């Protein structure tokens, strides 16, 4: 896998998810097959056909000082918590400010801020709007705050591609390092969209599970009885670094960030392209970019959101381009779907799987859809083989954005 270009490695991981407030607690919950989905207790849930969601396990306002949290949208709170964990985990790298970058996006941005601020405006007038309303609602706010905190001046970016946002951010970060713009980049995705307007709007698309009497069984990718996705919230952020920079400072290296493949469906604004052409393109491109073959890929953390159409199209594309040998899992069965945060947390899970050589099982797959012929990890976690192996995280978003990111063991 040697290539005459800058090699990019992963040296730090951070998450806050419906399963835990950090990587260690989330990872052990994933391996234990726990669900982070719960019935919503708010009164507004009565107005909706969907009465459950996967809320963050740890309230961000209990972690952050109050003066800080009051000027941050909830998505920004998640992002800062995850970024701080990742930065600490990387050993707080000493890096020149103009060699440090940030790429952190959100699918929707500060939507709870927007809606709450509009209520304040209508009821009390513009004078009572927080002067932080705009920085709270803008989808690049998380990237901006992290850039300020770490003093990153090489470039601070926010990709926005719905549910592919987190993965696209990581791909963009890899390219920043490869192109020589930065030595270290903090990258990932965040989302805080559990609000009746969002649940209602996704329900209007008939995209969500309505298994209200069994919320923990609702996210069931590839099961014949799946009926839609479950909304989650949180953030996942990683520290990427040129191999040279990481080796020079003696950093612990989790994996190589080996490549990224993007494609656009150019088909429908919200429905998956039925033949999976775009997913196959992204898979071919990630292999080419990483200099890997399908045989090298031993694990796929799939996008698989538990929707009737999307799950099977993805499984077929994996089988066609990569093969039927990788251990495939859908951690959304436990975390729900974090939209723009999904690619962030699932990249962390993919890297952890490679590093610890174990793949968490997909829960709730009681009756596997017969159209799925790839090796879905069910029941118990499964071990990955020793030696040089690689893994892929898939993230696809409304708008027809397909992103596959490859990580390789060191």
């Amino acid at each position, binding site marked *: 896998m040697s290539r005459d270009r800058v090699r990019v490695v992963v040296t730090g991981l951070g998450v806050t998810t419906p399963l835990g407030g950090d990587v260690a607690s989330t990872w052990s919950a994933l391996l234990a097959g726990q669900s982070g989905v719960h019935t919503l207790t708010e009164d507004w849930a009565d107005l909706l056909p969907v009465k459950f969601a996967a809320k963050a396990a740890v309230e961000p306002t209990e972690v952050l000082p109050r*003066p*800080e949290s*009051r000027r941050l949208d909830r998505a920004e709170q998640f992002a800062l918590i995850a970024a701080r964990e990742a930065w600490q985990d990387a050993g707080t790298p000493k890096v020149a400010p103009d060699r440090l970058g940030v790429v952190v996006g959100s699918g929707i941005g500060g939507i709870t801020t927007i809606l709450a601020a509009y209520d304040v405006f209508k009821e009390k007038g513009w*004078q009572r709007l927080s*002067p932080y309303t705009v920085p709270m609602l803008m989808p690049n706010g998380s990237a901006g705050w992290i850039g300020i905190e770490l003093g990153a001046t090489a470039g601070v970016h926010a990709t926005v591609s719905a549910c592919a946002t987190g993965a696209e951010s990581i791909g963009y970060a890899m390219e920043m390092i490869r192109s020589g713009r930065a030595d270290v980049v903090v990258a990932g995705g965040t989302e805080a969209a559990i609000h009746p307007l969002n649940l209602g709007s996704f329900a209007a698309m008939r995209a969500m599970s309505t298994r209200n009497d069994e919320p923990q069984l609702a996210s069931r990718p590839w099961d014949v009885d799946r009926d839609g996705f479950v909304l989650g919230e949180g953030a996942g952020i990683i520290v990427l670094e040129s191999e040279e920079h990481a080796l020079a400072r003696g950093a612990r290296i989790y994996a190589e960030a080996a490549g990224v493949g993007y494609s656009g469906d150019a088909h429908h604004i919200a429905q998956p392209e039925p033949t999976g052409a775009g997913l196959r393109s992204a898979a071919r491109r990630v292999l080419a970019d990483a200099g890997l073959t399908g045989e090298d890929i031993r694990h796929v953390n799939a996008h698989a959101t538990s929707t009737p159409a999307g799950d099977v199209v993805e499984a077929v594309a994996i089988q066609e381009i990569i093969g039927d040998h990788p251990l495939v899992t859908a951690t959304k069965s436990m975390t729900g779907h974090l939209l723009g945060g999904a690619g962030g947390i699932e990249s962390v899970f993919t890297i952890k799987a490679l590093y610890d050589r174990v793949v968490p099982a997909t829960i709730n797959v009681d009756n596997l859809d017969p159209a799925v012929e790839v090796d879905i990890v069910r029941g118990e976690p499964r071990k990955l083989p020793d030696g040089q192996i690689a893994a892929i995280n898939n993230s696809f978003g409304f708008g027809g954005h397909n992103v596959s990111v490859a990580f390789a063991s060191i």
Partner: protein
Amino acid sequence: MAVTEQEILAGLGKIINEITGIPAAEVTPEKNFVDDLDIDSLSMVEIAVAAQDEFGVEIPDDQLKHLKTVKDVVNFIQN
């Protein structure tokens, strides 16, 4: 009955602590908002609006920019 300087100072300390996290005890008359307390202009707007609610005195934007120290604000509210 007019509020005393001490009451205004205490109320201001509470507001500034709530908004910025700076301990109320550090909010003393001679402190400059920018140089000593590191409070930015957005937070000053929040503080002014909160002070208006607390003391019933409106601080117009063209006045706010002249209030450089804690004592300036206390005097403005008192007068």
